């Protein structure tokens, strides 16, 4: 089926930047209580740049692959850029198939465009990303740009 494109399968079988590493500014544990998927995720921010995202995840191919793409798209990027990426990713995932995603902004994230047609799976694809913004906030970063638009979108 078309939901499981090659990119998603690749990322789920070979998750990038997987594992929990030091140093880290904050660690969070997020779960999806309806299905039991879990992710432990750490972020390290140095001088406004996301220098590491490390994680240990248990879940379906969508949630694992999406967390892998998250790490790939945010490590080495300034925090504000990473938050823009999050917004673009969330926008696409919650668009019910309207937004095909911009590869300039979300890279391999476009592979998840199909997920937006399956409301029950959107949470799977967002699990790692939501954990990431939470970890940023806990390490003292300002994430108001995503929380101010969050209420109406998710």
């Amino acid at each position, binding site marked *: 089926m078309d939901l499981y494109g090659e990119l998603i399968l690749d990322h789920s079988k070979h998750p990038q930047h997987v594992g929990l590493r030091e140093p880290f500014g904050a660690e969070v544990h997020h779960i999806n209580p309806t*299905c039991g998927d879990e992710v432990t995720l750490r972020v390290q921010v140095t001088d406004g740049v996301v220098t590491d995202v490390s994680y240990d995840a*248990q879940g*379906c191919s*969508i949630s694992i692959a999406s967390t892998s793409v998250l790490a790939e798209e945010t490590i080495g990027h300034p925090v504000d850029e990473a938050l823009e990426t999050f917004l673009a990713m969330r926008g696409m995932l919650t668009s019910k198939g309207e937004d095909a995603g911009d590869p300039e902004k979300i890279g391999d994230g476009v592979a998840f465009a199909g997920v937006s047609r399956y409301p029950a799976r959107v949470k799977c694809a967002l699990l790692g990303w939501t954990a990431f913004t939470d970890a940023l906030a806990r390490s003292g970063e300002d994430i108001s740009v995503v929380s101010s638009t969050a209420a109406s979108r998710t």
Partner: protein
Amino acid sequence: MTAFTEDELARIRADFPVLSRTVRDGRPLVYLDSGATAQKPWCVLEAEQEYYSTRNAAVHRGAHQLAEEATEAFEGARATVARFIGAGPDEVVFTKNGTEAINLVAYAMSNAGAPGAIDGADPAVAERLQLGPGDEIVVTEMEHHANLVPWQELARRTGATLRWIGVTDDGRLEDPATVVGERTKVLAFTQVSNVLGTLNDVAPLVAAARAVGALTLVDACQSVPHLPVDVTALGVDFLAFTGHKVIGPSGIGVLWGRPELLAAMPPFITGGSMIELVHMERSTYAPPPQRFEAGVPMAAQAVGLQSAIDYLTELGMDRVHQHDTQLSAYCLEQLAERPWVRVIGPTDPAHRVGAVSFTVEGIHPHDVGQVLDDRGIAVRTGHHCAWPLHRRLGLPATTRASFSVYTTRADIDAFVTALDTVPGVFGLSA
């Protein structure tokens, strides 16, 4: 011999309108999620419509003709439910669902110790309901959250200790004797596991509880839809089930309790319709079942549930059970031919009811469910509200196919055919 002939099954299926719809770009719906909620036959929908269009009024309030007829309809439904489980009508309490029925007992137990909980309650009976530090509440490791969390909360509120009977690797209960003892005040267990499909042997559980004077509550949410259930034969003190899994409406559940226990139980939710006398300072309460039915009740749902039960009674619960056993056996047989599928729970269909849960090697259950859904097959994936059980089995989640009266072998054929495509989607070989 099959429980229902081909013709009968075709007629049964024609009674359930939703079964004729298509899903996911025109594929026929193959509904294998009846364990989560069952579909409804026309007669149930019509019974609700008939109630609203001809007899709607506030039950037990008002003396006009409509109110009389509405009350009669509601109480008639109660009588049907009672007969269905071998009980007396005054022993049957309508609740919102099975979850609320279990909470009703747990809250009555935590309130039973309060001064003046129920005036005139038999002290010997009231004493059995009370618990505190040193007392034990026993559940099992295969419970749905609905029959676990209310007991955790009761333990927290009263200072009692929660203990549980373990589950074996093949999905059976361990010996209750190692856990049920002198301190046990209540033993709550499911008759049928919503995940494993295990049909628990109730007799030894009841015997263990009786030997120490503990109360028993059986969660019958997954048994009442599939097999004949009789409260006297079971010998339990309380039984709970939920309407929507018995091909009835949502918004209604049932608690049955022994009359002497119900009589000594304080109310759970209070307000109108459950009182005897109300003064500004305090009130006295109606006898059961009204004591436990505060507010205007769900009369239309009660009438719908009555119709569902009439439908099942007409089919014959023995045949419904036989049909279910045959489906379980066929499904197990089909899955056994696929070495990459691991079924959890008992291997003998005689020890099973209603559902078959499994995992596919190397593929997460959500992904399995997604591929099936794309082919029109509705199954449940996840922990099915039994997270501790999954932890016990070392599984994050499972995929579950579950059955009802309208399920056919053809449904199972469609399911396994679709299942065969799953490994390929993920680059594995079947």
